[in-house]
């Protein structure tokens, strides 16, 4: 059984006035125990909103409009209060880009670990000063920080160290799933590489499942096993990370890849993606990428394609992942029920 099984997740933002903005539309996602999945896409594609939805961290004006989220067999989409809090312990955690700024500036690192450990304590936990200090030091060691950091205030630490502390705080609950939302975007490239290395090592050693949300295809491909490419609130491709740079893919994935190049190559050429992402307040028919797609055909403007097998994964594209024969009808039914 998958650790996390999301079905038909839709999230809308409700601005004070005006139209609803559909940030996530009817997303299905399943995550196995110990799997490391990346979600990649440009700003405004709904990747962070999806991460928040999966960890039940959505706050108004965002609202989970539809969908079921089964975590370890329990539907967490409808949980509230104490029962949701209980799920969080040994359950799921979220590490934010701004996590490094989310540390309380007037409390030492030690006290922040103490707060988390006490808030989620179970009967039998050692909550003595020494016990908490010992467990905090172990957690800091896991994120490759010296125990001396415990005595520091957040402003005395560098950005990379602060992000490591917030990863350590997330580990404190021994979660089975950690969602990392742009964990290294605010960091310098060299620091980013080191923090990503730590995340990857932790994930492999401890065996938790992880979701890495990033705008940077390079970061995602280097860290994860499987990549979900999001566009305009939908998952347009779901493919093993190793196969992204070869073979046929969703045209958006290919376009995204063409924006990168190897600076060491003899000839370097990078491309852009013309046009703009669609307006998410209007739920039009058709593939959301069709207006910018070099391969678009007539059907693309009329029907939103479902995820269909392509290469080693699945893609939502009429042209690349054309469903064979009998499955066309089924796909159309599914597409209709979406819109």
């Amino acid at each position, binding site marked *: 059984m998958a650790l996390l099984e999301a079905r038909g997740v839709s999230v809308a933002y409700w*601005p*004070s*006035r*005006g139209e609803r903005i559909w940030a996530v539309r009817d997303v299905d996602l399943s995550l196995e125990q110990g799997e490391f999945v990346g979600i990649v896409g440009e700003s405004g594609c709904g990747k962070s909103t999806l991460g928040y939805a999966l960890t039940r961290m959505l706050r108004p004006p965002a609202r989970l409009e539809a969908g079921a989220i089964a975590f370890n067999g329990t539907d967490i989409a409808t949980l509230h209060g104490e029962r949701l809090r209980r799920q969080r312990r040994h359950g799921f955690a979220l590490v934010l880009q701004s996590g490094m700024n989310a540390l309380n500036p007037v409390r030492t690192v030690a006290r922040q670990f103490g707060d988390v450990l006490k808030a989620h304590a179970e009967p039998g936990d050692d909550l003595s000063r020494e016990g908490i200090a010992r467990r905090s030091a172990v957690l800091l060691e896991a994120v490759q920080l010296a125990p001396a950091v415990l005595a520091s205030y957040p402003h005395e630490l560098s950005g990379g160290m602060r992000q490591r502390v917030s990863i350590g705080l997330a580990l404190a609950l021994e979660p089975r799933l950690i969602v990392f939302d742009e964990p290294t975007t605010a960091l310098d490239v060299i620091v980013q590489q080191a923090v990503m290395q730590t995340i990857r090592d932790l994930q492999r050693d401890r065996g938790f499942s992880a979701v890495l949300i990033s705008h940077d295809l390079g970061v995602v491909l280097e860290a994860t096993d499987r990549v979900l490419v999001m566009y305009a609130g939908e998952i347009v491709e779901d493919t093993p990370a190793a196969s992204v740079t070869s073979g046929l893919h969703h045209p958006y994935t290919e376009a995204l890849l063409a924006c990168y190049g190897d600076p060491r190559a003899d000839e370097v050429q990078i491309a852009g993606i013309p046009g703009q992402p669609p307006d998410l307040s209007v739920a039009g028919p058709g593939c959301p990428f069709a207006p910018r797609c070099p391969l678009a055909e007539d059907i693309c403007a009329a029907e939103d394609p479902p995820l269909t097998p392509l290469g080693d994964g699945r893609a939502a594209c009429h042209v690349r992942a054309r469903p064979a024969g009998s499955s066309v009808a089924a796909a159309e039914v599914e597409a209709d029920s979406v819109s």
Partner: protein
Amino acid sequence: MTIITATPPPEAPGRGVRIPVRASGRAIPGPLRFVGRALATLWSNGKARAGLIILGVIIAIAILAPLVAPHSPTATSFAPYKGPDSVNWFGTTGNGQDVFSQLVYGARVSLLVGLGAGGVATVVAVTLGLVAGYRPGVVDEILGFVTNLALVVPALPLMIVLAAYLQGRSVWTIVLVVAFTSWATGCRVIRSQTATLRTREFVTSAVFSGERLGRIVFREILPNMTSLVAASFFSAATAAVLAEASLEFLGLGNPATVSWGTILYQAQQQNALLTGQWLMVLAPGLAIVLLMVSLTLINFGVDALSNPRLREK
């Protein structure tokens, strides 16, 4: 000749008119347009609209006082200590003056002092705040010290002392005294906001565009603080209304002027509650509260003033 339309053809020679934003927009002078747009922005906020309506009614009453008031506010032509009746709706004072008419005319003084002192205090706050915020160093240190001093000295006792020593005893004395004691809060807020905006990239960008200091301060920084300036104006005005009433009530104003504070002062002097003239106490008090509430309500809408994104919706 160019015909100005909402969307001119791309190659239209823009003689005299640069690219028009709105066909009607260019004919109205800048400051008026600014005030109009600010009012429209405030109007779009429910609470601020309620405040604007109440303030509008009070202003209308103040301007039209001779028409609204049934009697002269100063004429001692009635029997003193009268309770409310059909002639003197709110009763009369111990000197035989009509309380309702006093209330109507009193709106003038309260508005004048409130808006006047609020205005003077805001001008002082903005000037000192901009200078201190844009010129860190010795100037900022000195101004910061003065501001902090003005903040910690209790305002009412200072006002009482100032009013007691100043000779004139006119409404303008009160305006200046109230302004002198209420600029500091706004100044601090504007100083710190200026210091923040000064380091923003669009200010650096303006330097690279060859802008001179004055233009950077007044065209780049100040417009981004419109909401703060408006907020400190309305806060100062609210405080000024109360301060004016307090000073008059304590007898430190000019007893000859008719204001809501002097009505309260007379009510106190003449033991109005003992003579059963409860309206003489209640009415000016309510009027003061109503004016303060209207200014506070307007303050709810000022956030949108320097945020074009909020303004649009």
